[in-house]
């Protein structure tokens, strides 16, 4: 089976390559069309930042799904399940349960009291300039972590798709050059979407992508289940057998919380599992590109509805990833997956190819399904990257430029112009950074972004909404404290140096034993916010009354 699909991969490479490129171009042309159309309707700052606040609950729910089901969900989780079995499922669970934090504690309050960005709520009752500066910094840092993950996914995909073997070339490029070229292409496209289409164009791109992704995942799930006559147990059994790890493949512990003879190692590995768990569940409600989605609907009730849709869509998708991951373990095999991509990022497209060969008429079928799924994955990456760039450039323009530099005196046109320039710059920075980090699993990278968001943003948001005694100093301490502790711990972790899979495998400056900083940096962010607020006498009961009344009732909402 595995050898078959490898041979077939060789033979069908060129069909698949042409088809993928064609499909991808169709998607790009279609979404560019939407973007240009949306740009004609983008006249005010509200149109640019919030899509005119005119989307329905279902539309925004799909768009949230589109923003959230990133390369991490599709490529990363499927890959982790395919290689490590059950442990990959932990991501799906954390990513989904996290939505309850957003639904119950953040979405509606944010929609009611903010305007365009996360900082609107953070700075509501604080001194504008310092808080907005801090929020802008943390928005950019979180978005860049997340962007790197998406770009790594794009790079992994392209070498599979173009089927470039070591030494071979495509259009005169070897595999590494092609990866870099892809990253630059994806980056350039996203800049176009964001700069031209603003929130309206980006939202439609998310919706189209969400439909494509759900459709693609559904087809593959059905084919996998059909292969096992809809008997989940025999799928799991086969996956466990093919993995060579037996029943352990279906239990926690192959990747996280690994038990070994070294007691300290076991302890740290288990701490790492807890750290990942807490980062996943608390990160979502602090992600700037998700938070800005709540502004694209007219009222908080519709924001609530859109979160419900999103939970339904995202939850269903994560159930599909179980079938995809275990299906890839059973039908592709970990050997073939790791040969293509060490971190497993290509498991889902490789599964598509294997399924196509079995069910859609041999090698051509394999090439077709691979091409379709790869185009879906590219669409996924492109859309998420656009959402992230939009959120971070909005924050630069609305929070930093308009409020800090211009002290609230910038015209709407000026603000939008700066947002477009910022999108361009952030896109360029992300392109450059993504060329490193190629060896890391995409879901794992996103988990780092979640940890940073949960440490830097969530404490400030929750204190701001629910704690009367919170103030400017608390907000600044919470953001900078949580953010810097998370980033520093990552920097001194085995992710960056001192392990074979690190970004810099040949150097070693790590002293922090965990891969994910959440278990330390999230409580630290909350503690900083508490202490910062206590160390300052600033307090404005009137402003808190206004925030509370408006966030709960929706009075005076934009």
């Amino acid at each position: 089976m595995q050898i078959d699909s490898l041979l077939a991969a060789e033979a069908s490479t060129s069909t698949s390559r042409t088809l993928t490129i064609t499909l991808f171009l169709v998607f790009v042309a279609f979404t560019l069309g939407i973007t240009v159309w949306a740009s004609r309707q983008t006249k005010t700052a509200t149109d640019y930042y919030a899509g005119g606040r005119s989307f329905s609950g279902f539309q925004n729910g799909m768009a949230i799904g589109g923003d959230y089901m990133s390369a991490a969900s599709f490529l990363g989780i499927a890959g982790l399940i395919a290689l490590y079995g059950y442990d990959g499922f932990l991501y799906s669970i954390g990513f989904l349960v996290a939505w309850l934090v957003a639904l119950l504690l953040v979405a509606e309050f944010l929609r009611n009291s903010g305007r365009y960005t996360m900082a609107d709520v953070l700075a509501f009752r604080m001194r504008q300039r310092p808080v907005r500066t801090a929020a802008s910094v943390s928005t950019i840092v979180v978005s860049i972590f997340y962007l790197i993950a998406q770009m790594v996914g794009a790079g992994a995909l392209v070498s599979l798709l173009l089927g470039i073997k070591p030494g071979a070339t495509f259009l005169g490029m070897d595999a590494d050059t092609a990866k870099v070229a892809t990253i630059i292409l994806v980056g350039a496209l996203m800049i176009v979407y964001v700069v031209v289409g603003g929130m309206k164009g980006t939202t439609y791109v998310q919706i189209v992508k969400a439909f494509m992704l759900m459709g693609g995942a559904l087809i593959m799930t059905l084919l996998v289940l059909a292969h096992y006559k809809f008997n989940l147990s025999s799928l799991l059994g086969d996956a466990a057998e093919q993995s060579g790890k037996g029943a352990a493949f279906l239990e926690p512990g192959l990747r996280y919380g690994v038990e070994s003879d070294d007691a300290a190692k076991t302890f740290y590995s288990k701490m790492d599992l807890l750290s990942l768990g807490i980062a996943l569940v608390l990160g979502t409600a602090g992600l700037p590109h998700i938070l800005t989605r709540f502004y694209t609907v007219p009222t908080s009730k519709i924001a609530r509805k859109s979160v419900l849709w999103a939970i339904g869509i995202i939850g269903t998708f994560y159930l599909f990833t179980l079938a995809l991951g275990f299906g890839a373990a059973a039908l592709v095999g970990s050997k073939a997956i790791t040969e293509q991509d060490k971190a497993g990022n290509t498991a889902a497209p490789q599964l598509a190819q294997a399924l196509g060969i079995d069910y859609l008429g041999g090698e051509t079928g394999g090439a077709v399904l691979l091409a379709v799924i790869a185009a879906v994955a590219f669409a996924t990456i492109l859309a998420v990257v656009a959402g992230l760039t939009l959120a971070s450039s909005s924050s630069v323009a609305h929070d930093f430029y308009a409020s800090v530099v211009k002290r609230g005196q910038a015209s709407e046109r000026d603000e939008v112009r700066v947002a477009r320039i910022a999108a361009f710059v952030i896109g360029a920075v992300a392109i450059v950074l993504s060329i490193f980090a190629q060896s890391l699993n995409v879901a794992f990278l996103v988990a780092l972004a979640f940890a940073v968001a949960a440490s830097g943003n969530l404490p400030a948001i929750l204190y701001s909404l629910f704690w009367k005694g919170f103030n400017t100093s608390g907000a600044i301490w919470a953001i900078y404290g949580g953010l810097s502790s998370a980033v520093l711990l990552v920097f001194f972790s085995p992710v960056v140096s001192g392990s074979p899979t690190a970004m810099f495998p040949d150097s070693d400056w790590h002293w922090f034993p965990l891969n994910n900083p959440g278990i330390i940096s999230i409580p630290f962010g909350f503690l900083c916010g508490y202490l910062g607020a206590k160390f300052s006498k600033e307090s404005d009961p009137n402003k808190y009354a206004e925030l509370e009344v408006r966030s709960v009732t929706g009075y005076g909402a934009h």
Partner: protein
Amino acid sequence: MTTEATPTDKYLEVQQSEEFVRLRRKLRNFIFPTTIAFFLWYALYVLLSAYARDFMSLKIVGNINVALLLGVLQFVSTFVIAWYYSRFAAREIDPIADKIRGEMTAAAATPEPGDTETKPEAAK
């Protein structure tokens, strides 16, 4: 910001009104305990994954073990809580919130003498 012209005393008044206090209590009595409950339930799952491997690996039917079942139950509980919250909010929260908002909007539309506040932008 459209609200800068709005005196904030008005908000203090509303915030301390009986109706708003009741709304806030209802809302907080739902969202905080629910958050704690689902967080503990999730934490239990993560802790079991880390420290109760033997329990998690018990097989229930065929190759389906406790770990997988508990994972899927996290999905189920998430769906149920989301659905239950939206029902609760639509029945218990929205009517009071709408009423308070309506009263505030009406009050803002008929300014008292000497009151220079501007009418807040209606929800778009």
